[in-house]
């Protein structure tokens, strides 16, 4: 058999089978030159395949537009949520606690208001009686 030549690359690429593959193995067992070539081609093949994958420049294809936008959207959504939380926390700190006013207090306030302005009404807050619901 003549030297293997291109069968070596085809073998490395998984493109060889059957009789050609058997012939190649047989030849490699007998030919130091082709065995050396196999090693060298394997090395250069590995070097090409180890080249870094180049990232597509932003904006060149649709995916380059979409991916950063998703990332940005995620960032701004988180930032907006953080701002809202801070605003709520500050509001809670500066807002005085709510006070409860009894009906009597309310009535006395209305009475005071009415004494200053008789047209203001109603003068009295009437709370409906609570109906007791039988269990």
């Amino acid at each position, binding site marked *: 058999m003549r030297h293997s*030549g*291109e069968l*070596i*690359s*085809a073998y490395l*690429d998984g*493109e060889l089978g059957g009789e050609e593959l058997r012939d190649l193995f047989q030849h490699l067992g007998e030919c130091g030159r082709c065995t050396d070539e196999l090693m*060298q*081609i394997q*090395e*250069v*093949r590995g*070097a*090409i*395949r*180890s*080249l*870094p*994958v*180049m*990232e*597509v*420049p*932003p904006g*060149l*294809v*649709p*995916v*380059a537009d*979409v991916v950063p936008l998703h990332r940005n959207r995620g960032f701004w959504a988180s930032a907006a949520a953080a701002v809202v939380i801070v605003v709520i926390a500050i509001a809670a700190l500066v807002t005085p606690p709510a006070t409860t006013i009894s009906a009597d207090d309310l009535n006395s306030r209305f009475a005071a208001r009415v004494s200053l302005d008789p047209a203001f009404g109603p003068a009295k807050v009437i709370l409906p009686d609570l109906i007791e619901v039988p269990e």
Partner: protein
Amino acid sequence: MTESAPLTWEEVARVYGRKIYNFAYRLTGNPNDASDLVQEVLLRVRKGLDQYQPGSFEGWLWRITRNAFLDGVRKENRRPTSPLPDEIDRWSLAQSPGADVEYARIGLGDDIQKALLKLPVEFREAVVMCDVVGLSYDEIAAAVAVPVGTVRSRIHRGRRMLRESLSS
């Protein structure tokens, strides 16, 4: 292999954009020419999708890509195979985020890239389609419109030339 065409060119760009860009980058050796080639390919895909006949979509796509590259080589014929400059264009790299990281990554493959650019076009495209894009010999044969035996021969001779170039 995909047997039916994606619905839109945007899907083609989304699915194959990175592969096309890497194919273009390794064939041209610089990001600007690679970007131009990707744009040209996507333009041709956009125009051609209506006429696409069901079959080997990747064969069709890579034929378009390869023809666009060859047309660019014929048209410009000034720096189609110009080797990478010793000093990589830092200005253009600085336009994208992570430029330092990208520069370091490019530097790793400088010697191999320069050796690739010294290969005659037919050997370079066969090696790049096989080792960078990951196409099978059948797919390369379909894209380049040559017999599989020719693809096999070009890939092996291309690798041999690369080995000699790298060892000299």
